[in-house]
């Protein structure tokens, strides 16, 4: 039987996916890396190896852009966690009836195009949008607050669009969470705060990590939301990449910047990972 199974589930079954992956994922990434080292002389049409593009990236302006993208991604992760954690807890452990419906309602907005979600915020944030109209009507303010094209608007839009990436892993972690542990902790005399920090938080940490990673990585490369809600005031990593590839068509410099940012991201995540490992070891020693 084993022999027969092998004959049909032969090598050819695995080939299409593997070929696709190699040809369109790994080869292009290698190309990206390779083009970042290539300098083309337009007059002679001869290409040669050069580190020139990486040297150009030493300009401090690129550091500012990287730091800006990093900050925005970090803010997005924190705000998503703040909103999503209690909601996931409530939905997974406190709700008995209508659980499916409430869950469906929670993920529904994100099955629509995210550009439409961003667009929706125009109606709330504009000078004569809903928030200002309401505030004016109830007399909290006398003149409309300027909200569009500010950093706050960008953060709000990022939070709105990236929320599900945090919600879903947290929800599934809480679904597997044994609620009796909370009761046990309280029965044994822990306060609510102690129960939270010593029982609930450590046990849901894997979900938090997954969610944070799922939000952080795409948020780091995001440029559409900042450009739509922040009014193109400041450049982000994504806008620089777009600029080089599509506007000025300097593919080599664009590739160099892309590789550089990707390396920066990997390096940053690596540092976080190391810090976490060190912290764990110290805790074990103590």
């Amino acid at each position, binding site marked *: 039987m084993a022999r027969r199974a092998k004959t049909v589930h032969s090598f050819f079954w695995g080939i*299409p996916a593997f070929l696709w992956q190699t040809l369109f994922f790994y080869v292009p990434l290698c190309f990206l890396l390779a083009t970042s080292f290539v300098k083309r002389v337009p007059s002679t049409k001869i290409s040669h190896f050069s580190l020139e593009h990486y040297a150009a990236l030493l300009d401090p302006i690129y550091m500012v852009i990287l730091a800006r993208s990093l900050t925005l991604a970090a803010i997005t992760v924190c705000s998503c966690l703040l909103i999503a954690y209690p909601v996931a807890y409530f939905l997974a452990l406190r709700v008995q009836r209508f659980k499916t419906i409430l869950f469906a309602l929670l993920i529904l907005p994100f099955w629509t195009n995210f550009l439409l979600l961003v667009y929706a915020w125009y109606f709330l944030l504009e000078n004569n949008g809903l928030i200002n109209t309401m505030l004016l009507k109830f007399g909290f303010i006398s003149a409309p607050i300027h909200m569009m094209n500010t950093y706050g608007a960008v953060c709000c839009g990022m939070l709105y669009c990236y929320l599900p990436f945090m919600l879903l892993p947290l929800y599934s972690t809480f679904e597997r969470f044994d609620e009796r542990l909370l009761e046990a902790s309280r029965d044994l005399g822990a306060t609510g705060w102690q129960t939270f920090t010593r029982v609930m938080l450590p046990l849901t940490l894997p979900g938090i990590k997954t969610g944070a990673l799922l939000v952080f990585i795409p948020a780091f490369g995001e440029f559409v939301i900042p450009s739509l809600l922040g009014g193109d005031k400041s450049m982000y990593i994504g806008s620089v990449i777009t600029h080089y590839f599509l506007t000025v068509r300097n593919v080599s410099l664009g590739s160099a910047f892309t590789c550089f940012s990707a390396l920066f991201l990997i390096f940053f995540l690596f540092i976080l990972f190391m810090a976490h490992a060190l912290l764990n070891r110290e805790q074990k020693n103590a």
Partner: protein
Amino acid sequence: MHKILQRLSNAALAVWVTGAYLFLYVPLLVLVVFSFNKITFPYHWVGFSWHWYQELFVTSEIWEAAQNSLIVGASSVVLSVTFGLLFVVWSSRNNKHYLMGAFYPNLVVPEIVIAVGLLSFYIFFNVPLGLPSLIVGHTLLGLGYAIPIIYTRYNALDQRIIEASLDLGATDRQTFFKIVLPLLRSALVAAALLIFILSLDDFLIAFFCAGSSAQTLSLYIFAMIRSGVSPVVNALATLMLVVSSLLVMVFCSVKVKEDIW
């Protein structure tokens, strides 16, 4: 004292959750309401009208873009689910689970890097940009999702059922089509829905790899938002919300959640 604190924290939790739902739904509600507004300048309510929907239906560019999006979505769903299924069955049967790791980077590498990588690949080989070049990119994303989803379900299957089928004289082909496929149906539906939505939602890969000739829904919406607020976009958003709520209902009713998350 303890009881009061308990009640207080419960109330705070309830307020927080209600706030979160409001945060999610107020913008959408406003979006939908203004699609029925009578005037173009959209920030205050004048009266009810179907005008923007009529305009939406006669704007041929939108329907062309929607058609393109559907073609891209459907093709990448078919390609990635088929390839993914074949790969999962093959690698599980031959104990090559570690090869699955080759597909995880699709989810971890930022989408913009994948898009730009593909673009530089296309530029180097002078591949004309258009719908096919876009389908390639979306299938990559799709494989990243399809393989883990199908893999989880396939390995949760009772392998003895498959052995029994083979022992009882079914051929491999029969076993695959009559036993394995029906058992994997919920995972396949979940993966297909998810990939379709991702493809419709995707902006970055379309932005870089579709070229100037092929317009997808995402690119069209982006261009429209850029050129200013128009209630036609609201009407389009309302329609898309209706469609996606139908899809969510399918998603939740096939009880496939546990296969994914």
